[in-house]
């Protein structure tokens, strides 16, 4: 059985010898370097953009500006999935600092840099707005005339009688939480290389969404989709930032203008910060609760700062609405989720997308309520957590629900009820906290694979699942190996390459092991059927009487009557058998006015519990121990699953304690890894444990993000437990904690 084993990643040797063919490594003959001339003001009318001097510089091959898109026979300037409001390069309007205005293709980076200095730009500045709530106020600067209120999207959920719910409450608790803009910070930055040949466009890129990139490029250049090829080698990290469409249109536009030579465009670390960010969010949450801890109502308002263009916000805002409610039995729920345009770089998915902000709010809020009511935070949660067959706030009936098990696994792993070890000093204090999360996955989603078995017994899996370090290809190979009854060693996985590998929605939202895993099972079943049919004449039995397993086709009632797969193919003179596997989900239609309906095929479930030590004189927080749990259904590869759980916690610690994009007048002031900090080895808890919960008969569930969103509230709750300071604004910096401690010295515990 290949499933359930910790087989090393298929390309492990390449990973330790430095030979993984990342898209940043790509070198093509005659390849040019692409560079971007960017705006330095947040909001302006462009009066003049003159690139003629730059174009004349020897070594400059082409410069693309918005003028290149003027005319019916030209490519479309605007793109976006699903809303086409983003120009490839800004035309008459600049909407954020760092927005591309001109693209340069040159023989070398040095020449491109020189060309940059020769570009002349004149503009008239407009007033700008950076705060999401301010952008919604009357009189705020308008970014897009089509959205005079600056709202990208407003999602609503209405369930139950909210007024009656609050009226029935013994206590009403209202809090406001905020999370800052952050950056995904893959160690490999965004990169795309484009080449045009005979009217066909090929793009090699680090993307989590190859088929979306293909569709959007097709729309920009008005190409039939078979004339757009998107190839995605293994990525040096994705974390949501490489989802949707980012820099690929710019690379393609440069190569289009150049004509006969490929152009490579790779972001510097500083450029990465204006390429994509995580939504800053402000969340107002208000709950009605009985003295016994029963909830009567919850109202949530969320303001997502989407940046200058809609991009992913259009579909993430409704997802974020569902993820901010909390996995609890609450009879009346109202939610308003607003995605808002501001003069900042675009915001999109960041690992734990649109969950982390909401989970920080509702799980901190749960502890506030628990302390108010004098109920243990674990007990208040387990009393109210949703169970299988309960109805969620969308009205949908829940299945395969394991919130209680996840939370208890984390809490008991930590030793929730055991006495806290104290350092018996007064300066450093310890505390514990926990949190739980629920997240819908991408609905109305489709995955397809092709499996090929050749006459030598080798199996090749063609998938558009992106390998970005999560081990997706290895997990899918394990699933295929088990389903075909062959050893993992004969498996190879190839893709994504839209010319070779079948469509898949994207590698995001922890969907691949579940969606593509099921597609692989479907394809393997089809391949087994083909083997049975091909073997039937040889074995002289009907295919229905044959079984296929462990590398053999055999007569079900006489297992000794068998032939190996290779012989089935050989004796039929078949070079290879090929099967297609498909899997799709249709849920996801919510009523736009009430948010009622079925939102997701499955719910992602995770929890965390931690122990922290707070230095009461500095406010510095050290996470000493952290236990996480996620519901995995069936674990494909324990080592890789553990890496997902632990990796989430470490990633989440960054967002909780360190990460914040600092902005001054729309200018990012810390676009580097010295001022924007990522968690290091020494920032990792010395005791870091995880568990992936399985269930008999369950299928593969996504685990790519579930242990991340609980991290911030678990730590915030532990800080409160230690020193009585409630921090409602991420990151949980030492200074905020110290101010919190000093602000309440009058009633210190």
């Amino acid at each position, binding site marked *: 059985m290949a499933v359930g084993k*910790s087989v*090393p*990643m298929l390309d*492990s*040797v*390449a*990973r*330790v*010898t*430095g*030979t*993984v063919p*990342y898209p*940043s*490594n790509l*070198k093509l003959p005659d390849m040019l370097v692409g560079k971007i001339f960017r705006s330095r003001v947040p909001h302006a009318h462009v009066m003049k953009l003159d690139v003629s001097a730059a174009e004349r510089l020897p070594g400059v091959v082409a410069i693309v500006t918005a003028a290149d898109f003027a005319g019916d026979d030209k490519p479309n300037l605007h793109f976006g999935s699903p809303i086409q409001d983003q120009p490839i390069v800004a035309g008459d309007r600049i909407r954020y600092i760092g927005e591309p205005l001109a693209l340069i293709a040159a023989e070398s980076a040095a020449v491109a840099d020189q060309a940059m200095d020769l570009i002349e730009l004149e503009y008239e500045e407009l007033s700008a707005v950076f705060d999401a709530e301010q952008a919604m106020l009357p009189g705020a600067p308008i970014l897009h005339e089509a959205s005079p209120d600056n709202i990208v999207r407003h999602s609503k959920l209405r369930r139950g009688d909210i007024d009656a719910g609050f009226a029935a409450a013994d206590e009403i608790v209202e809090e406001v939480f905020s999370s800052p803009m952050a950056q995904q*910070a*893959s*160690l*490999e*930055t965004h990169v795309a290389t484009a080449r045009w040949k005979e009217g066909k466009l090929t793009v090699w890129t680090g993307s989590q969404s190859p088929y979306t990139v293909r569709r959007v490029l097709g729309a920009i250049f008005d190409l039939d989709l078979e004339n757009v090829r998107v190839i995605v080698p*293994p*990525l*040096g*990290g*994705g*974390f949501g930032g490489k989802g949707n469409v980012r820099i690929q249109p710019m690379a393609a536009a440069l190569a289009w203008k150049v004509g006969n030579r490929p152009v490579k465009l790779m972001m*510097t*670390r500083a450029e990465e910060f204006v390429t994509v960010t995580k939504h800053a969010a402000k969340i107002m949450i208000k709950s009605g609760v009985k003295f016994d801890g029963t909830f009567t109502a919850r109202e949530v308002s969320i303001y997502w700062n989407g940046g200058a263009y809609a991009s992913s916000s259009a579909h993430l805002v409704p997802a974020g609405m569902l993820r901010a409610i909390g996995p609890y039995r609450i009879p009346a729920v109202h939610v308003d989720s607003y995605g808002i345009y501001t003069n900042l770089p675009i915001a999109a998915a960041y690992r734990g997308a649109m969950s982390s902000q909401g989970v920080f709010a509702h799980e901190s809020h749960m502890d506030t309520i628990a302390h108010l009511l004098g109920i243990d935070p674990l007990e208040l949660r387990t009393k109210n957590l949703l169970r299988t067959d309960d109805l969620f706030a969308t009205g949908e009936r829940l299945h395969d629900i394991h919130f209680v098990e996840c939370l208890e696994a984390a809490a008991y792993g930590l030793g929730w009820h055991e006495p806290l070890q104290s350092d018996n000093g007064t300066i450093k204090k310890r505390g514990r906290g926990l949190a739980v999360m629920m997240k819908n996955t991408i609905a109305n989603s489709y995955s397809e694979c092709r499996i090929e078995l050749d006459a030598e017994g080798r199996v090749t899996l063609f998938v558009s699942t992106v390998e*970005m*370090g*999560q*081990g997706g290809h290895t997990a899918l190979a394990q699933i295929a190996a088990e389903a075909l009854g062959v050893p993992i060693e004969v498996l190879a996985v190839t893709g994504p390459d839209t010319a070779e590998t079948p469509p898949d929605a994207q590698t995001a939202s922890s969907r691949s092991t579940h969606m593509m895993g099921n597609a692989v099972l479907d394809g393997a079943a089809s391949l087994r059927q083909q083997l049975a049919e091909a073997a039937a004449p040889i074995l002289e039995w009907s295919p229905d009487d044959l079984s296929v397993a462990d590398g053999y086709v055999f007569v079900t009632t006489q297992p000794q009557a068998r032939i190996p797969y290779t012989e089935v193919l050989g004796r039929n003179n078949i070079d290879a058998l090929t099967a297609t596997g498909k899997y799709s989900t249709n849920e996801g239609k919510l009523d736009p006015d009430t948010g009622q309906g079925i939102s997701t095929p499955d719910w992602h479930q995770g929890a965390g519990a931690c122990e922290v030590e707070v230095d009461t004189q500095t406010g510095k927080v050290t996470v000493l121990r952290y236990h996480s749990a996620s519901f995995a259904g069936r674990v494909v590869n324990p*080592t*890789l699953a*553990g*890496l997902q759980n*632990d*990796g*989430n*916690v*470490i*990633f989440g610690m960054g967002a909780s304690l360190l990460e914040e994009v600092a902005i001054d007048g729309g200018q990012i002031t810390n676009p*580097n*890894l*010295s001022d924007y900090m*990522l*968690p*290091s*080895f*020494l920032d*990792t808890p*010395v005791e*870091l444990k995880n568990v992936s919960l399985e269930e008999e008969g369950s299928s593969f569930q996504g685990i790519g993000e579930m242990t991340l969103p609980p991290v911030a509230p678990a730590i915030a709750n532990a800080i409160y437990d230690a020193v009585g300071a409630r921090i409602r604004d991420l990151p949980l910096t030492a200074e905020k904690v110290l101010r919190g401690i000093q602000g309440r010295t009058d009633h210190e515990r």
Partner: protein
Amino acid sequence: MSDRTLTLQVNGRPYTLEVPSGQTLLETLRESLELVGVRDSCGIGMCGTCTVLVDGRAISSCLTLTAQVENKHITTIEGLSQDGQLHPVQQAYIDHGAFQCAYCTPGFILSTVALLGENANPDDAAIREYLAGNLCRCGSYVNILNAVRACRTIDD
């Protein structure tokens, strides 16, 4: 712009090449010698993806001008395995699943080799301290710790 001809000793082999005065070792190794195990990421010596060993010591090749290391012995990840045999540290990283996207892995492995060169039996604290300057955004630190533990002469 002054180019100069210089000789580098990389992975035991001499290379004589023309290098612009301002070229970093990272650029030379990646672009001229096509040693793509050396990687660009932060550009300021913080992340460690461009780590190489110079005379056995780990340095950031992004903060080193190529001219500074003329005639010094440079080791990149490509120089670790011998005759197709993985270096024990490389094997340990595989055995303990000590990577995910692996963009950081060559840097971690070279830093581990340098650590073990200085201290054959580092305790956990020493390992964490030494490797803290290499960042793994995927968060594989627990498994990396296990891999390095397994490389100590006295494993416990």
